């Protein structure tokens, strides 16, 4: 059994409770045991880093130092924003030992920062540490027939020099995982556009506009559902969808799943454990597509002569 240090972040205990609980189901199937960081604290989120640099580094630093007390070399983070703060801090501390020393001096009691724990988003952990093939092997119930638009948002792969994972503009890791589950990932050009993030509360208009564009493009791509790995993306696209529909006068009816919900579904976990009733947009319509289409047979490579004959004919 593999072990993984886990940082749930505040949203996993609130708005994205279904992300947290399905993540645990999925990891159980994948034979990974989660170890919580003892006495973990808030990552600082948006508030800390607009206030002071020290605080923005010190809060994640404390978590990083505490994580080093566990034996695991990797920390998995559910929330994209927590991941971002933790990873930025780690990269900057590792690059600049002087800075690390200064920030560490504010969290002396917890210990000395050594930089030995790597920081990954859960998406990155699935993609790099578990791998697409082992995920495919665990699938009991293929999602074939379901078309999904994989939406990464702004934080999971950006900025590139911090995350060093997948492409900052057109990532494919979530698409590949969804394909492994049997679903079809649509060609979705808005996968890294901004959803409006925390403006959801302070300036909702912005979110209605930006998330509205994401929904429109997802629909345009032919998707039945959107898949995310970020609590804020999920809440904006799902919770604000009725308002967006009202404003645009369009009916989208696109449920927004966490990647772990679809994985748990494909791994054969009972549907009543997947917390679908927590969604604002009903999921039943989208899920009804599963099994409607026979799995596409693998493409057979045509013999060269046939290809040539075709091009001749053209």
């Amino acid at each position, binding site marked *: 059994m593999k072990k993984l240090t886990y940082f749930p972040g505040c949203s996993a205990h609130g708005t994205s409770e279904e992300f947290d609980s399905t993540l645990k189901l999925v990891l159980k199937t994948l034979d990974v045991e989660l170890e919580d960081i003892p006495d973990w604290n808030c990552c600082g989120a948006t508030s800390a880093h607009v206030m002071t640099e020290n605080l923005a580094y010190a809060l994640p630093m404390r978590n990083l130092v505490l994580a080093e007390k566990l034996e695991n070399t990797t920390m998995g983070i559910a929330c994209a924003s927590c991941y971002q703060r933790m990873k930025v801090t780690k990269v900057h501390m590792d690059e600049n030992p002087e800075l690390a020393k200064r920030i560490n001096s504010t969290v002396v009691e917890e210990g000395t920062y050594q930089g030995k724990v790597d920081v990954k988003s859960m998406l990155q952990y699935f993609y790099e540490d578990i791998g697409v093939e082992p995920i495919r092997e665990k699938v009991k119930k293929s999602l074939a027939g379901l078309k999904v638009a994989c939406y990464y948002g702004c934080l999971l792969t950006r900025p590139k020099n911090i995350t060093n994972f997948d*492409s*900052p*503009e*057109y990532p494919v890791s979530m698409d590949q995982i969804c394909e492994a589950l049997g679903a079809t990932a649509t*060609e979705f*050009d*808005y996968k890294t*556009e901004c959803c409006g993030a925390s403006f959801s509360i302070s300036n909702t208009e912005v979110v209605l506009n930006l998330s509205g564009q994401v929904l429109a*493009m997802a629909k*345009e791509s032919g998707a039945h559902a959107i898949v995310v790995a970020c609590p804020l993306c999920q809440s904006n696209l799902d919770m604000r969808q009725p308002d967006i529909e009202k404003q645009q006068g369009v009916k989208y009816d696109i449920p927004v799943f966490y990647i772990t919900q679809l994985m748990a579904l494909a791994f054969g976990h009972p549907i009543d454990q997947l917390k679908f009733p927590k969604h604002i947009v009903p999921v039943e319509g989208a899920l009804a597509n599963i099994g409607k289409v026979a799995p596409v047979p693998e493409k057979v490579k045509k013999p060269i002569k046939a290809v*040539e004959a075709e*091009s001749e004919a053209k």
Partner: protein
Amino acid sequence: MARVGVFVCFCGANIADYVDVPQVVEEVKRIKEVKFATEYKYMCSDPGQGMIRDAIVQYKLTSIVVAACSPRMHEKTFRKALSDAGMNPYLLEVANIREHSSWVHQKNKKAATDKAMDLCRMAVAKSIANEQLHEISVPVTKRALVIGGGIAGIQAALDIADARIPVVLVERSPSIGGKMAQLDETFPTLDCAQCILTPKMVDVASHPYIELIPYSEVIELQGFVGNYKVKIRKKASYVNFKTCTGCGACWQKCPVKVPNEYNMGIDKRKAIYTPFPQAVPNKPVIDAEHCTMLLKGKCGICAKVCDKGSIDYTMQDEIIEREIGAVVVATGYDMWDPKPYEEYGVGRFKDIITSLEFERMVSANGPTNGLPLRPSDGKVPKNVVFIKCVGSRDEAKGIEYCSKICCMYTTKHTILLHHKVHGSHAYVFYMDIRAAGKGYEEFVKKAQVDTGTTYLRGRVSKIYKKGDKLMVRGEDAQIGQVVEVEADLVVLATAVSAPKDNPDLARLLGISYDKYGYLSEAHPKLRPVETAKAGIFLAGCTQAPKDIPETVSQASACAAKVCGLFAGDTMKKDPMISTINNEYCSGCQNCLNVCPYGAIVTDDVPVGHGSKDLRTVAKINEGVCQGCGSCVAICRSMAINLAGFTDPQIINEIVSI
């Protein structure tokens, strides 16, 4: 007793601002051999040189020290001043107090001054031991090598050959012509590239003074200016060019299809092919990577249909050698790969193409009969968005420099689109319009009016697909808003980049290259076509991005330099070379191994006076030795002496500080 004169230069403010020049002069005056010392604002100017000439006569000086810029800049100038005053020019020493002191210690005047004084003391001490030396004459091979057969190489070869100097022109691909042969019309006059280029290509092939070696690569260069030896690998073409008439039966019947490089892969060529119908030489070669006969031993159709029997599947690469006196490097450029622009969907959207692909499509001899077509569905596009500076002027994703030609060719493309597709509309996203050149600004202005193109100043941030259209989102900085343009086709003006093999070629030739891979000129302003290695010159984009007129000018400049080099029957060479004292030489031959120029051979000399027994010693070939001093350092017997850098000179320098 030595009588040394010291001349310290201000170099305008270059030295004087950071080094206390009067203090340096006072300091050197305290050395007892220094009989005269002075300062001047520009020592290299005529009055400055005059001061040196006058002082030599007036103070009966026996050696001269000039404390100024690098000897690479003005050593020759000052040596001439010595000659003019009747003094042996090699009695000069240059103390480099600019590059070695004032420029690099701008924050500490005292330290810079102290260092300048040290450098002067060393130069004075060395000059005291200087000896009179005399230039060496070496024979010259009057034949030039031109590497690369694009417009730069063609022009250089023709100009040199017209001066009745034999030229060896080596081209890597099966035909000369280069990138220019792929162009349709050329800015700012819209001459057809083929019409102005192909006659020159024919001239090259038929010129009695040009030996054209196509489908070949330079693999080794040995020797020195005036006396190089080059090894060329002639790639196996599997076609006997002597008997082949270029009739075309072979490539018509060949069953293997390969993406056509000449047309940027838009259509297919055969495995036996000439790159394009106007190719020179107009003889096919077999592409060994794709030919079924060469890969699997099956097929052989081309040999069957060739009634001259010119096909030879057993042909091997051949190494040939030529003796030459000078080299012109004209290896051109590559188009930058826009893959890093993921936000544009490069590689995902078929209807995003590069400018060179657009150029091929609108070319009269192109794969689409001169019409731009959408690669996705073959339809003629109406709305075309041109994006400039893709890779250029982009430190984050591309290259820092401006590629210089994209503003102009994009303007040309808007005109070509306007001519070819009625009712079309062009949009150009640009950062600046750089139209510096004769007739260029007028060309851009006229095109803007005639074509009605919409120019949007700003960068494109995203391209996404909506139905079968591409939505191009960018900033219009002039109205401060984000705009979206619906496009049928997007054309990326990708940057000009250095040929990826340039670093390898530079190492092979022994010349330098910059961080981008462009070959370095000897001086950015005053020696723009020479390299730091004597006898090797640069023409065209291999040195930096440039347009056709500039490339042709530079190629002609190279030709003038080559002709100048070959003007006499012999060439003067600096006398700073090694000599061997046979008395001390033990014949260990370590020096043979370290000599980078192959200038040392062995010789047999009598063991003693009048003895018949022989022993082996080393011997220097005067013509080949470049005076690098490697042999001096390795010699355990201290038998080797490097003129101008003798042991007494070096020891004097060391003792003086």
